[in-house]
């Protein structure tokens, strides 16, 4: 009886230890994959990492959930190249024509360590020009998005 109990306890201990080991390993792997320092140049990042990024993407109502970028052709290239240093919010809150977006890219390349985009430059510019073009507006817009409330 006592021997059986000892056996069971030993068995339980082994299982617990094994599960603990598995959890720690998984945690380590996740953290390792998650850690992508921005100073790693784009060329150093493996194809696997790039494709993981593409597969994990979810879009709702035409917008990529994680970044808020409009879901359109070229979005993976934009996410991959344009959100390593700064947030996608710097894209979604800005508007410019193709020339304006190109000027921003050149400024980032000359002073902010942005790499040579190669043939991706055209894909990125096509995406930005189409989805984040300036709206026509005058010297001042009507007030909009007013949340009306009763003031006593």
């Amino acid at each position, binding site marked *: 009886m006592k021997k059986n109990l000892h056996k069971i306890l030993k068995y339980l201990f082994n299982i617990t230890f094994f599960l603990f080991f598995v959890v720690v390993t998984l945690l380590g792997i996740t*953290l390792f994959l*998650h850690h992508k*320092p*921005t*100073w790693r140049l784009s060329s150093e990042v493996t194809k696997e990492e790039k494709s993981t990024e593409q597969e994990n993407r979810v879009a709702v109502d035409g917008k990529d959930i*994680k970044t808020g970028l409009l879901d359109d052709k070229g979005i993976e290239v934009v996410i991959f190249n344009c959100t390593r*240093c*700064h*947030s996608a*919010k*710097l894209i979604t*809150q*800005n*508007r*410019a*024509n193709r020339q*304006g977006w190109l000027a*921003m890219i050149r*400024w980032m390349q000359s*002073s*902010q*360590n942005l790499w040579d985009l190669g043939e991706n430059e055209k894909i990125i510019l096509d995406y930005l020009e189409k989805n984040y073009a*300036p709206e026509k*507006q*005058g*010297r*001042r*817009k009507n*007030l909009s998005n*007013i*949340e*009306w*409330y*009763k*003031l006593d």
Partner: protein
Amino acid sequence: MTGFGLDAVYGALMPEGEDFLGIQDPYELFQKHEDMVLLNDKPWNMEAQAHLLNDYVTPASKMFIRNNGLIPQKIDLENWQLTIDGESAITQKKYSLADLKNNFEPYTYHLTLECGGNGRSEFNPPAKGNQWTVGAVSCAKWTGVRLRDLLEDVGVKSDAVYIGYYGEDSHLSGDPSKKPISRGVPITKAMLEETLVAYQMNGEDIPLVHGFPLRLVAGGWPASASGKWLTRLSIRNKVHDGAKMGGASYRVPCKPVAPGAKVLDENMCIIESMPVKSLITYPKTGAILSGNKNLKINGHAWAGELPVKQMEYSIDFGATWHLCKLKQPTNRLAWQQWDVEVNFPQKGYYEVWAKATDSSGVSQPTILPGWNPKGYLNNACHRIAIQVS
């Protein structure tokens, strides 16, 4: 104040990168009011809305956040040093936080800090950068030593031109050889009595996101001149050439240009004093008034280096203007409170427009001021919508 435990506290606040799930709540992280608006999460940028700025002294919870780079992850208070050096420094000195607090007279001033790009979102063609609306301005109570006292302690050569600051924030790319921002002020501004090397804001340690433990504060100038996490000040014999001092950064065309014009670097001039501006901080836009057609409104007005001499409002889109009651500032470079009772003659949709005039007679424009490549200095009249039903 001692450094005991503070490392741990600020370590726990670590505002950089992402946590395990990639989620960070900036409202909790920076203890900001829930009505603050998040513009960017890398780098962190957040602005107030007009109605949040109703306090005369802006509390930390309602102060806008502007970052060019990443907030320092570790603040080592015990070993924190401010170095003063440069071509035009007679000697070079290092000060600990204790040196600054114990060996120099402390001064407290209410100082208006407005982001140069406040109002950028209205420019057309659009200007790149964070799309600030009206809330990138604050007027808190800053305490510290006069920069002038430190400069005199080090000794300033007669050829001094500019003070350049360096802080502990790091570049977005992670490149340790690059500084996200290193600006400053001309020696004349540095020598004014309100220019502080501050160690307190509103009577407490400066919040980490606003520059703890040390910040250069140059009220009335673009807030980017007020360097955070300050470790070094260089007395330069030329205009400081740090990051974001050249190109289109914090600079505007020296001569007026047409909207959308391309402007060469050599034709751009550094922004100094901010222009005259005002806000309606009560009521919040969108108020529906029933029956009672009288409404008390109030807000603040400021004009960079100058005092505001007159405040007016209009409820007919600028056709007629009416005077408001305007208070004197607590000290130079503090914003001034104004208030007035408005009567709406009939039911309907109104906009209340507010217009300040500075001591030299210059007023806010009702439409956008001159376009510039980076969309700085929009001081067009603030407007709120009112419905009388």
